């Protein structure tokens, strides 16, 4: 059994009471001593006692509490209007939100505080420690604290009326996200529509992507030179879509390598990527009709460490001098270390990543670079499977809608017709 705690002090109630008792005795003595000292020293110019130790503070008003909407329960929102003494540079330092249970409605405990001095008159506090099956009462106190540390602190408190009962609950749909919901449905709808159309045999045009047209040439060159191909599926783990995209492209490249009978080596930096890449390469060799040519050690692990991996790859590249190197996936700072070393041995390098910060380095050091979205289109482009190509068309329709929305939105906002951008605002 846990003793009741005053959450902010993180002390059990009993100890709190003892502390409060000690404090009040201490302050009581202090004030008595100081008042009598003042009075004896300055009898001619006496100040009324009330001004020295306490003054009236106006409480916050219109306190209300309700279940926080669009959440997973366990939270109640308390809203109040500021105290009359809380104007900019007013004397109120903070508001304390206090709560009691339906079992003991009179026993209030502090659940949180909010700093005063906001410019807006309405304050709100989310009490995230509510339990969904309990009823609560709330009140809010305006507090003025003077003094710097615990020993000299003096507080004046003005409490509001009690509001309640109220209880929290969980909702099944977050209505603030309805725009994202509609958007995702639309975009996925387009993609699926075009996938079906392509399945039904409708031809879809796809423009040339130079980096992907070069894949054949790059694999062919390695074959001619009798050298290896290195494939690096990024340095992130399988919980990154870019890695998954990199691994699917690996499947297409491995198929070509199997057809040409060229040694493809995949050194990876994550164990899960190793497991997946092995499956992919094995399957690709089987598809190409060369299951016997697949070797387990084609895919191997080096180290999870970003720069340890880069050091290892650098060594392998200069020693084994592959004719072609692919970099497809998520990269960080190691991108340029790898690409410059590959460049120095004269390998053909084809890179693709969705990391905007690393794209410039690949562009500078590689022969071909797939920029962002092109990486995600690569698997479809290389496979030429109608279903996959269809998804690219769906993506483009989405893009067209975005372009139209940008134009329309700018027009509407420039002429002050409608705040169009709010349609796209995301709440987290």
């Amino acid at each position: 059994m846990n003793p009741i705690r005053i959450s902010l002090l993180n002390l059990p109630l009993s100890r709190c009471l003892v502390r409060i008792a000690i404090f009040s005795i201490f302050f009581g003595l202090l004030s008595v001593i100081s008042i009598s000292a003042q009075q004896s020293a300055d009898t001619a110019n006496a100040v009324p006692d009330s001004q020295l130790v306490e003054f009236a503070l106006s409480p916050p008003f219109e306190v209300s509490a309700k279940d926080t909407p669009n959440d997973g329960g366990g939270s109640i929102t308390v809203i109040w209007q500021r105290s009359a003494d809380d104007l900019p540079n007013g004397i109120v330092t903070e508001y304390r939100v206090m709560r009691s249970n339906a079992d003991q409605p009179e026993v209030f405990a502090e659940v949180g505080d909010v700093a005063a001095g906001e410019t807006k008159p309405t304050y709100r506090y989310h009490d995230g420690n509510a339990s969904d099956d309990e009823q609560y009462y709330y009140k809010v106190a305006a507090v003025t604290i003077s003094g710097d540390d615990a020993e000299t602190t003096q507080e004046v408190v003005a409490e509001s009326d009690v509001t309640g009962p109220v209880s929290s609950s969980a909702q099944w749909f977050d209505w603030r996200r309805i725009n994202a919901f509609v958007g995702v449905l639309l975009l996925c709808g387009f993609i699926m529509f075009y996938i079906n159309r392509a399945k039904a045999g409708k031809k879809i045009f796809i423009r040339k992507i130079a980096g992907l047209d070069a894949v054949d040439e790059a694999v062919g060159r390695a074959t001619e030179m009798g050298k290896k191909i290195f494939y690096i599926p990024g340095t992130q783990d399988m919980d990154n879509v870019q890695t998954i995209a990199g691994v699917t492209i690996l499947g297409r490249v491995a198929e070509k390598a199997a057809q040409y009978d060229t040694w493809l080596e995949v050194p990876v930096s994550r164990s899960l990527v190793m497991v997946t890449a092995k499956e992919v390469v094995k399957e690709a060799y089987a598809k190409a009709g060369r299951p016997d040519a697949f070797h387990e050690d084609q895919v191997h692990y080096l180290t999870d460490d970003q720069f340890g991996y880069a050091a290892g790859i650098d060594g392998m590249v200069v020693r084994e001098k592959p004719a072609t190197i692919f970099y497809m996936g998520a990269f960080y700072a190691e991108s340029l270390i790898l690409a410059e070393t590959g460049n120095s041995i004269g390998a053909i390098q084809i890179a693709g990543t969705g990391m905007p910060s690393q794209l410039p380095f690949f562009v500078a050091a590689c022969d071909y670079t797939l920029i962002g979205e092109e990486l995600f289109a690569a698997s479809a482009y290389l496979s030429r499977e109608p279903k996959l190509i269809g998804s690219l068309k769906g993506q483009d329709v989405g893009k067209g809608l975005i372009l139209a929305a940008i134009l329309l939105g700018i027009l509407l906002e420039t002429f002050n017709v409608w705040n169009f951008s709010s349609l796209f605002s995301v709440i987290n």
Partner: protein
Amino acid sequence: MEHFAVWVAAFLTLGIVSFLYKDNPWYKLSEAIFVGISAGYWFVVLFWDNIYGKFWNGIFPEELIDSAGNVVTREPDYWLLVGAVLGTLMLLRLIPKIGWISRWPLAFIIGCTSGLYLINYFSSNMMRQVEATIMPLVGHWVLDPATSQNAFSAFSGADIFSNLVLVIGTFTGLVYFYFSKEHRGAFGGTAKVGIFFIMITFGASFGYTVMSRMSLLIGRADFLLFDWLGLVR
């Protein structure tokens, strides 16, 4: 020991740097040490942080004693067992006969990742970027308190130009990524402008990163010349 330590660090530092000249035994040794130590480092760290710290302590929470001397107990989080099951299935790969079961946890992870990325990138990257691009181009409409009507306050010429650059750049850049239409004619011209913007982007962010990268090297040079050899005053 301190002398030894700083020499070890300097030896390894120079070993890596020597690669810039050419591959050599010194680099090979440093590289092998790096690969071995870092693989082992992550092996240990993942074990203690993830398996022991997250899983074991999550299922069998330790009793903590707080500053007041009270024992704080935490609820065990049995949901972590799902992770343990997935991890165990993964390890079945070591047994060739039933190794194929490891595709299940893999399929699970890929499914989660796809779902999460789909919605996260849609909502934060796409919606947020589109929202930021849609803006009034030539001026604000501000509420005039005197007449309580919206009054137009124009941006400066420079601001209008900057906004136009931002909008045109985003628009044409997106056109460049169009896959299902040939880049010819007016459409091709727009895409061409888009690639110009993308090139400026690459150049600028390349130039920007140079500063940070140089400071890393300065730090190493300082270690060698100051901390190690004491050549610099």
